[in-house]
């Protein structure tokens, strides 16, 4: 199993497996980067309605092609059909949201289920048709890779390249609309058209990915990679790039994993792979991860208790808070009877001196952005330059200033 997985990773598991792995990676890149802006606009669920609305189009296109004397399985014909019905689905959501008192979530739920239901009915009807080659149509639901052809890979490659190009080209207006649509409109951006472009990207991803991942699960590839990348970065560009990367890796690894054992479904494995990356990120991402948050809370708490306790003792008070006592004790600043150790005395003097400097600095810089950085915890030398501190010390040496600032701490 492991060696089969390695073979698949290195594209040594046969022609079809290699085709699937490369296709899935490209699709993942396109889906991750193309889905990011809809995610940032907080309209990700719209992509689910869109994906489910493709099914009737697939069915109708098949029936039409059979009626016209074809075998009904022409890929471009089926994709064209799904594009048309996804567009109708989107317009329906849009119409319900704008013209009725129903909110977007209700519109999405209604359109999604009705279109999907209609599509399933059509597929059932198709199964009973005597003409046409209907095997494999249900692959559009959950994706199938068994019959992946070179042509399918070409569709994914060209579609993926187009999607990434449009993302790069429209990154600025899309960022603007996602962050602040009112400002975007006031700077001359046509918000409706940009929204349409975001939707168009998601539609393109869905259609291109129909065959590989299927319409039920494609939404995962549009949402999970951006959500994962968001955990790692505070910059829009990096979220877009990261989502593409995470999507690509999920696609490639998922495809390789599913190729390494018989009968592992590719689409669902790709989705699970992207979820694994998400779960890891959620736990371990710096700043926004669960562990980082715990750690930083803990560090903050210690800092707070240390400073508060040392200040209280420096002013000759006593410490009632058990947590404060525990922190100071652990750091060797107080003894068991809550009196300061030598190290504690030095630390208390330092903290008190820092407070005095802050009081002076805030007096001198009242209206600068700087005084907003006073949070009662941060040491002043982490905020001001050495020259500025020297100036503050000089003023503090002046007895007239010293008296005024002394009571502020």
């Amino acid at each position, binding site marked *: 199993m492991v060696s089969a997985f390695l073979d698949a990773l290195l594209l040594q598991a046969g022609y079809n497996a290699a085709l699937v792995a490369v296709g899935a990676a490209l699709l993942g890149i396109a889906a991750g980067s193309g889905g990011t802006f809809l995610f*940032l606009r*907080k309209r990700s669920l719209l992509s689910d309605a869109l994906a489910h609305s493709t099914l009737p189009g697939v069915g109708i296109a098949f029936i039409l092609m059979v009626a016209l004397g074809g075998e009904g399985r022409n890929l471009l014909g089926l994709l064209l059909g799904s594009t048309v019905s996804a567009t109708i689905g989107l317009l329906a959501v849009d119409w319900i949201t704008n013209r009725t008192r129903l909110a977007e979530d209700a519109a999405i739920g209604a359109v999604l289920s009705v279109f999907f239901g209609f599509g399933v009915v059509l597929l059932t009807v198709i199964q009973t048709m005597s003409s046409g080659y209907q095997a494999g149509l249900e692959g559009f639901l959950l994706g199938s890779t068994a019959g992946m052809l070179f042509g399918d890979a070409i569709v994914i490659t060209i579609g993926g390249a187009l999607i990434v190009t449009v993302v790069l*080209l*429209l990154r*600025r*207006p899309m*960022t*603007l609309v*996602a*962050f*602040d649509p*009112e*400002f975007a*409109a*006031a*700077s*001359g951006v046509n918000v409706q058209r940009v929204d349409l472009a975001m939707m168009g990207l998601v539609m393109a991803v869905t259609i291109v990915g129909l065959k590989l991942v299927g319409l039920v699960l494609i939404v995962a590839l549009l949402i999970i990679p951006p959500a994962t990348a*968001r955990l790692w*970065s*505070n*910059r*829009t560009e*990096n*979220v877009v790039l990261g989502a593409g990367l995470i999507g690509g890796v999920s696609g490639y690894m998922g495809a390789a994993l599913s190729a390494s054992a018989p009968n592992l479904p590719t689409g669902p494995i790709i989705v699970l792979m992207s979820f694994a990356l998400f779960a890891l990120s959620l736990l371990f991402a710096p700043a926004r991860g669960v562990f980082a948050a715990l750690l930083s809370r803990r560090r903050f708490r210690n800092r707070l208790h240390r400073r508060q306790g040392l200040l209280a003792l420096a002013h000759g008070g006593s410490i009632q808070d058990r947590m404060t006592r525990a922190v100071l004790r652990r750091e060797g600043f107080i003894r068991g009877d809550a009196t300061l150790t030598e190290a504690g005395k030095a630390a208390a003097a330092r903290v008190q001196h820092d407070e005095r400097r802050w009081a002076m600095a805030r007096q001198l810089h*009242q*209206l*600068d*952005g*700087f*005084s*907003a*950085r006073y949070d009662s915890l941060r040491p002043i030398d982490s905020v001001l330059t050495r020259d500025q501190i020297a100036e503050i010390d000089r003023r503090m040496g002046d007895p007239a200033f010293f008296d005024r600032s002394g009571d502020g701490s």
Partner: protein
Amino acid sequence: MNRVAFKVERDQGATAAFVAPGESPLSINELTVSYGEKPAVFAVDATVPPQSMTAIVGPNGAGKSTLLKAALGIVPRLSGQVRVYGKPLAQVMNRIAYVPQRASVDWDFPTRVIDVVLMGLYRELGLLRFLRSPHKEKALACLNRVGMADFAYRQIGQLSGGQQQRVFLARALAQSADLYLLDEPFAGVDAATEKAIIDVLKALKAEHKTLVCVHHDLSTVTQYFDRVLLINTRKIAEGPVATTFTEENLQKTYGGRLATAHIEQLKLPAA
């Protein structure tokens, strides 16, 4: 059109120069906006003279923000006309800067302070040109004007309300516009920020810019602005603060809901 111009001339008396609508940075004619079947703004006229600082004042729900948004084409107008420097909006977008309400965006969005200010340059950059160091320098200079240069590389979620407002103002500065439209720039900010913002706005006026602010604090109108537009769905009065911001007009605007004691505190100009 002529009727509006004539009225403005008469209102301002000898203190202000005659403003033809064609030269006005912002002239609004019979503007009506409606949410559902209730007009939020009804048939409002306004003509803003160049180099002026106008406060749009009125009670909550009077349509102040809506008027501003409709003037910018952010919300659709049901009827009426807006001219900016005598031209239709679409032709002069690049002469307008807009500061929306702080609460209108998600401050957890993945972006840094400097990136927000750079958004003010997107119009100039277009789709293809890359950001280069002159653009960054310009953004930093704008941040510096509002006292936020130290925060350039922070995530925007770490800012206080007042700091967020200053960043929005810096973004508007980056747009290098002639007409500045601001929606409640002083709402919920600290005293230091209020001072920083009004200093920048006054400096802009001194640089021959024109400013229009939705403003909610009656006590600072005379101190900050030279013109006032009083509205409550309809326009109540428009003109220089000295002749327009009177007790009679305020009572008309607020429908007698202002306590006499409150009005006395405003130190209104003697009628």
